[in-house]
């Protein structure tokens, strides 16, 4: 019926060719073989879903977030219900609760930072800002993000997140190492600023090299030169 609509729209000279197209037969599919392949694909899908269901921690960040919030809410409710009246006990419980909330935030942040989507990883880096005293895992995840994440925005966000922990030696070393490897001018400039802010003297040599390297972006070279100048002025 639809085919007729098209045919009627054509001028007579093309209509005969249109009708001749009918002579090209349609191919018949090997339905049985194709259905076997299709079922195999469906089974593989089910297996993947089952496996992810069996895992104790769900893969989807949104679900992880909801579970984290539910656990938190349950913790608060139970805590209030069983809270003894003694102030000393209350404060111990509060400390315990805070620690648990901190742990939850760490889990959410770490999990988000491992996601495929750059938006999720960005969210993971932001989550790490909510952790008061992150342990080694979070810091090393942030440094790993700074070093290896393919997305410039995520790498820049990780520098911001690491800024709070600039006094830690591991962060200083990691940032300096990243400065020697990064190719993106934006990230290089952010790292130079970070180093200058930290007054990390070990980076002077690296900054001098950057300032003189013709392959490096001009703005980066200028910023590195300014950084060296800043160090020299402070020493005087």
């Amino acid at each position, binding site marked *: 019926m639809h085919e007729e609509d098209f045919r009627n729209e054509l001028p007579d000279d093309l209509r005969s060719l249109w009708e001749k197209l009918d002579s090209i037969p349609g191919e018949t599919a090997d*339905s049985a073989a194709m259905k076997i392949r299709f079922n195999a694909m469906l089974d593989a899908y089910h297996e993947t879903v089952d496996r992810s269901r069996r895992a104790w921690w769900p893969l989807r960040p949104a679900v992880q977030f909801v579970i984290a919030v539910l656990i938190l809410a349950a913790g608060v409710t139970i805590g209030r219900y069983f809270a003894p009246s003694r102030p000393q006990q209350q404060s111990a419980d509060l400390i315990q609760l805070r620690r648990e909330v901190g742990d939850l935030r760490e889990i959410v942040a770490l999990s988000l930072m491992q996601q495929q989507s750059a938006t999720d990883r960005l969210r993971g880096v932001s989550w790490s800002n909510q952790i008061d005293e992150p342990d080694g895992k979070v810091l090393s995840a942030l440094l790993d993000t700074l070093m290896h994440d393919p997305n410039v925005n995520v790498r820049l966000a990780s520098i911001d997140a690491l800024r709070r922990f600039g006094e830690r030696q591991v962060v200083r070393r990691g940032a300096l190492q990243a400065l020697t490897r990064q190719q993106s001018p934006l990230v290089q400039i952010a790292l130079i600023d970070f180093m200058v802010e930290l007054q990390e003297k070990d980076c002077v040599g690296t900054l001098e090299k950057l300032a003189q390297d013709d392959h490096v972006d001009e703005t980066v070279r200028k910023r590195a030169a300014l950084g060296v100048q800043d160090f020299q002025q402070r020493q005087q």
Partner: protein
Amino acid sequence: MQHTDERLMLSVRDGDVRKLGLLFDRHHQRLFSFFCRLTGNRTVAEDLVQDVFFRILKYRKSFREDSRFNTWMFQIARNVRTDFFRKHPAEPSLQIDFDVADRSPFPNQKLEREQEREKLNRALLELPSDKRELLVLARYQELRYDEIAELLNVDVGTVKVRVHRAMKQLREIFNKLSCEKNKCTRKTSETSCPTI
């Protein structure tokens, strides 16, 4: 009671993934034929059909309440086709042997008909891929003007114009192929090429 394609797809979207099997049963032949006509290759067509259903499963959440399954499925099929031609830029070649029973009692007529059919199919495969796809959709896939227009994201008038242009180009290629075939006879008989 038989469910509509849309209802089945909504069930798949909402987690009843096994229902996709019913949609496969209903549409795999149609998609296979679509890809065969575009690629001229059965094996490739089978792979592409599987790819379409894999993507339907993967992107099932994008199927909306007001979506038409037919159009949505062909949108995915077109993307699969585009990706395939991007990865394999070589022109499609005719690798299908047509085995159609011809009831004509005259062997010469049968041979002529077969030759013409082969030429026409070759002409179809020589069309630029977008025009070939349009003709396949309009001629063989039983899609309406408005469905094709939605699929190509253009208005109905544009579809009509494009079908007309594609048919004109198909005729040119078909006539050219007929000329090449009849070169030897033309030299001796000095007759012009047969045209449609």
